């Protein structure tokens, strides 16, 4: 096996900084400007999914519903030509789904009621609050853990990398107007977990190398660490991307957006674990001095 090639990752850190800044600004602008398209879980309302035997013309169905006195129903195909999703937003009301179904039933062919969701406005609001709160708690706990296990500068790097990934993933959802529902929130939190996993492995190597290599500048140490972990980073991202692709292609409509959010997150997370965390550490002048704590030493492997 040949000698490990050391890539000069940090030489590109200014370009990466510009790249990340632009992505973050665009994401933030879109999030503040037009926000997210909130799914039923968060917005409240009623939706009903039905399966017809033959392909359905949604425009015709929409007109039919309007004629029946439903205000502004959203009617879209869901997954296939025969599946239709009808949503009534902004007027959450319990009997609505039953009335909708009875109107749809009048059409001469058999229809299959696939699902009905009714979410009251207070539930949606609570979920929004809980989701945001959960995200903040996750970031805070992670920052604390990394600060204890590693060092403060590492934890700032790790958390900024996470914020970077989350904001950009949300930004992509905002820009592409993909629907943000509870499963997507779960995916974003999973992105936090994944990206963290990556960042920690890299940080771990940086810590080890700072202790091992005595005559090298921080930039050199970081470059060597990133090069050493590069294959691991790429291979793990590859396997994760493969399974996400399987979910995206074969998992069905309900977890489509879940898979998309994770794919974006894993992609961005791979990049951020190389560039964002390390760049932040360098910007905070991370040095050997930060990590010389002999009593911390190595964690003794008591497992085989």
């Amino acid at each position, binding site marked *: 096996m040949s000698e*490990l090639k050391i890539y000069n990752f940090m030489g590109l850190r200014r370009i990466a900084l510009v790249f990340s800044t632009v992505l973050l600004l665009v994401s933030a602008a879109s999030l503040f400007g037009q926000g997210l398209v909130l799914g039923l879980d968060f917005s409240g309302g009623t939706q009903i999914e039905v399966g017809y035997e033959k392909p359905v013309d949604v425009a015709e169905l929409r007109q039919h519903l309007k004629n029946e006195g439903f205000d502004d129903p959203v009617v879209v195909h869901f997954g296939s030509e025969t599946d239709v999703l009808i949503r009534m937003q902004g007027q959450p009301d319990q009997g609505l789904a039953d009335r909708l179904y009875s109107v749809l039933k009048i059409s001469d062919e058999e229809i299959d009621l696939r*699902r009905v969701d009714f979410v009251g406005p207070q539930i949606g609001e609570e979920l929004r609050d809980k989701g945001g709160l959960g995200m903040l708690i996750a970031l805070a706990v992670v920052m604390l853990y990394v600060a204890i296990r590693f060092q403060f500068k590492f934890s700032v790097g790790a958390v900024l990398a996470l914020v970077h990934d989350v904001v950009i993933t949300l930004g992509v959802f905002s820009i592409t107007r993909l629907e943000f529902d509870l499963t997507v929130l779960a995916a974003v939190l999973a992105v936090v977990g994944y990206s963290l*996993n990556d960042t920690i492995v890299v940080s771990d190597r940086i810590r080890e190398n700072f202790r091992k290599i005595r005559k090298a500048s921080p930039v050199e140490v970081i470059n060597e660490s990133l090069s050493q972990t590069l294959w691991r980073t790429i291979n793990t991202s590859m396997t994760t991307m493969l399974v996400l692709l399987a979910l995206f292609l074969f998992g069905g409509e309900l977890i489509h957006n879940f898979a998309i959010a994770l794919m974006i997150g894993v992609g961005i997370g791979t990049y951020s674990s190389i560039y964002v965390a390390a760049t932040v550490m360098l910007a905070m002048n991370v040095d050997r001095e930060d990590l010389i704590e002999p009593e911390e030493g190595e964690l003794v492997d008591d497992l085989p």
Partner: protein
Amino acid sequence: MPNKFPLWKNLMILAVVVFAFIYAAPNLYPPDPALQLSGQSSAMQIDQAVLKKVEQALGEAQIEYFAGEADGETALIRLTDSDLQMRAKEVVQAEMGGEYIVALNLAPTTPQWLSDLGGSPMKLGLDLSGGVHFLLEVDLNAALTTRLEGDLQEVKSSLREEKIRYRSFELKGQQIIGRFRNEQQIEQATSLIRANFRDLQPQNKQGQNPLTLVLQLSDIATSQIEDNAIKQNLTSLRNRVNELGVSEPLVSRQGKNRIVVELPGVQDTAEAKRIIGKTANLEFRLEAEGRIGEVFEFRDGRSLDARLETSPVITGENVTDARASYDENGRPQVNITLDTKGGWQMGHSTRDNVGRKLGVLFIEYKTKLEKSLGSNGDMQITPVPFVEKHIISLATVQSQLGKSFRITGLDSQRESSELALLLRAGALAAPMYIVEERTIGPSLGADNIRLGVQSVTIGMAMVLLFMLVVYRGFGVLANVALTMNLLLLVGFMSLLGATLTLPGIAGIVLTVGMAVDANVLIFSRIREELAGGASVQGAISAGYDRAFVSIFDANITTLIVAVILFLIGSGPVQGFAVTLSIGILTSMFTSIVLTRGLVNAIVGGRKIDKLWI
């Protein structure tokens, strides 16, 4: 570095592997579609005779079944085809009538030896099994108001009894406000209330009119009333849901004032909503003297019919509590508590009627299925709503009754607890309304399972292939670990009774992708050590040791995120958090301990020059 495990470690690994196989195995046996038959009252015997009647009805309707069993309390009939389940239910219900509850069920086919070991298949969430989910909010303020209204009447009447005069007494929001003419009156009233109404607390605010008495429920009383309201609603809901004939319904409290109802397999939401929101009621009526009155049957059908007066003394709304207990002689009885109004009316009516009998009438609003011939000659089954009134108790009035009294002379403890249950089920303590409703049709549930299995299989196959290509020999080991990880994950979820949801399946897929990370880390390390000139055995040992720290830190942080996700999420999302957390733990075992065991067994202690990695 000999790289050899002591015997106990190898045995431990073996034990875990065996564990995984055993507890994952029940998932290989798909359950049979089945019908479950039980009686409306626990006194009913469901025996071979009943079973025979059911089997005959199914035979006539040409619905294929292959096994039936009855154990005295329930009967289970296994059908060959799940499409026939609905029709079979209608046929059996129409044949057996309203005293029987017919439920759609899935009968486990887990072999006896596996279930003896505690093995059972994973539970499926509603998004996979199909069914209805309701989230109901209990209006606790209404429960408090009802209580305060009662208290207001009591306070007024006891003031009148004590000849304490007041200008006015009224309920304003959650406060009782009394106005008096002079200081002496207000002082007398305050001390009376302090002595007799512990739950009402006189409020003293600055700037309050000195001739105004403001009463509020104490915090303890408030939380007690709220708690009781939720509990009573839960009890009533459980009784009602049982009537729906759902095999494994879930009715449980969520948070301070919400109740979750999950009904797997139910498709008719309108019917479910009607039953959940329906009001069973009670009426206490005196036995009729002479020929005027109505004749009712007993609910259990054991006693003779009785004739009751046409108008009730009180109704179920006045019953605040009913509990089964024992009298001085150890015989079962039911203690009943009424509200003030009910107690007063009861006292008034029973004063002159000691020695007469008092009956309790249970009124249910039900639906029955009627068979009829349709216009084109085929049989149609239509639901017809009807009201059923049965006597559940008829007892002699021994003395004048008041706010609390008891019904004695019951035969068994079973009878007393059932009577208490029926008395309590009469009315909801506080109104409820639906704040969330999700219905998943059976076709969507089946689709979700199919898609989930498909994506796990394909994702898994791709990862296995990838690892084989990139890490060759060691890739085989990682793949063994990955497969074992999936088995362990399924085994643990089955054993813990965790519920599998669609996002849960996504969590499994994600775990599959991320689980190889630990092995990738270890193998990369070993490659590095080899490149750095270490011996084969030394490289293996160092590779595992050094990678451990990274793996541990990385997994703990992911676990933290998964736990937070579990805490904030609901239903399906919690399913995701559960599979992710269990997956992290099992993957740490398989990728670190299991692969090391395999590596040690294969190359440990030997002289090898080159590793196929």
